[in-house]
């Protein structure tokens, strides 16, 4: 009897904690959106974040999407399409990269790179009272710190993913033409023929959502952190893990919405 009670107690606490955390994140999210669309805007901070997220993440995103495109081409060929390979490989690479691989890969990589850095930076600012100092200097921390980061994430991830799309398709092309000896012109023709705007658009929309998730959770975890170096470390871990999980969940949800099967 007692064991059951403590079990129910614990379960209840877990459930309550979950809803409390979800509620807090929801409020934070609402506040962030509000401050993203109301002046004053800190354009300089926004510019810095655009460069930080967009430009400096480019190598990581390029490498991951390149190899993803290459491996998809190889797998499609060796796995199940040796017979009518030329058309199938081009199409599978195109669809897989634009719909799934580029957004998800870029999202996860940027979560590791940017989400962690944001949580650490804002967390340090929190525990050293720099965020309090911002308020006393009449600068709203949401406007100065969080809105530029979230806006930059939402704007830059689609750009990164678009570039990733191109690089991933090039990766598939390289494998197809140089390793599997497909005819280059036919491969390109096939790719062009199967290219559907919807694939690209859905991928870019996913990217924007992922950008929001990454930056929001990075900022949220940093903002809530307390207790010195250990707290900041914890915030960083939480930011990356929770963003990665949410990216995969939302990837499924968005796919369901877009390709309503």
């Amino acid at each position: 009897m007692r064991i059951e009670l403590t079990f129910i107690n614990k379960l209840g606490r877990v459930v309550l904690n979950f809803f409390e955390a979800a509620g807090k994140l929801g409020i934070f999210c609402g506040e962030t959106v509000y401050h993203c669309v109301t002046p004053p805007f800190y354009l300089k901070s926004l510019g810095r974040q655009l460069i930080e997220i967009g430009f400096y993440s480019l190598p990581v995103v390029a490498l991951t999407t390149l190899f993803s495109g290459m491996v998809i081409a190889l797998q499609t060929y060796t796995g199940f399409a040796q017979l009518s390979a030329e058309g199938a490989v081009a199409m599978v690479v195109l669809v897989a990269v634009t719909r799934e691989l580029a957004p998800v890969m870029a999202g996860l990589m940027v979560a590791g790179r940017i989400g962690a850095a944001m949580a650490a930076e804002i967390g340090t600012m929190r525990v050293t009272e720099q965020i309090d100092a911002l308020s006393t200097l009449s600068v709203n921390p949401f406007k100065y710190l969080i809105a530029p980061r979230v806006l930059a994430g939402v704007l830059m991830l689609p750009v990164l993913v678009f570039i990733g799309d191109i690089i991933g398709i090039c990766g598939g092309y390289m494998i197809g033409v140089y390793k599997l000896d497909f005819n280059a012109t036919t491969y390109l023709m096939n790719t062009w023929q199967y290219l559907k705007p919807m694939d690209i658009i859905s991928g870019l929309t996913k990217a924007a959502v992922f950008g929001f998730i990454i930056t929001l959770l990075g900022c949220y975890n940093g903002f809530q952190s307390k207790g010195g170096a250990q707290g900041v470390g914890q915030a960083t871990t939480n930011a990356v893990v929770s963003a990665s999980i949410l990216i995969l969940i939302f990837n499924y949800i968005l796919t369901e919405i877009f390709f309503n099967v």
Partner: protein
Amino acid sequence: MAFFGRKEKPVVPKIRMEKVCKAFGKKHVLQDLDLTVNTGESLVIIGGSGTGKSVTLKCILGLLKADSGQIEIDGQDMAKLSRREREKVLTQFGMLFQNAALFDSLTVWENVAFSLIQNKKMNRKEARKIAVKKLAQVGLGRDVADVYPADLSGGMRKRVGLARAIATDPAVIFFDEPTTGLDPIMSDVINELIVKTVKELGATALTITHDMNSARKIADRIAMLYEGKIIWIGTVKELDKTKNPYVRQFVAGSASGPIQMEVKVPQ
């Protein structure tokens, strides 16, 4: 209408705290704290370490939310104002944090000029000039202006924080231990700066300090915080005459008296 002999309007205090309570979990830091700071006066809060002096300042600034009680600034109840109105009221405040809380991604002069650039939209050249002037007032030279806070000593950081707090000539300034970590001569320079700021700019100052010399020098009134309440308040003269055993012990700095430090000596 003056000849109708209307009574003078009651003076609205700059800051009035009434029955303010603040607890962290089970730890009750402020319990029914009452405190009034008049416009243009320099009030010093003394009290033991960890009694909630910094928490008091943060509650006034809204950085911490009081659990109960009333905080009025210029007669306006802060809890009843909208966020925008509250932010507006707080623009007249400046604060020196106990650990300076400088922005480590900005250089020293950018820290000092932060509010000038962000709020007053001053151009950088002009803002820098003012920053350098304010730095000079706290005894820091031009050479410090372009380094990052991480490269400064603790006392230098504190002074940069002070320069930042007074950069916009705020009407109300909070100093959280302005002279801690400074040598005696520099302490006195800072004391004089605070006195000058209050006298010349007509600012209202609320200072926390453990340094009785400094308190005597800058205070119009001194308040003592103990167990979450203001247990004594009075002028410097009254401080020397008071019979309040808590205040006497604190001023004398003696370990024996009614205030028992919780020092756990292993048996």
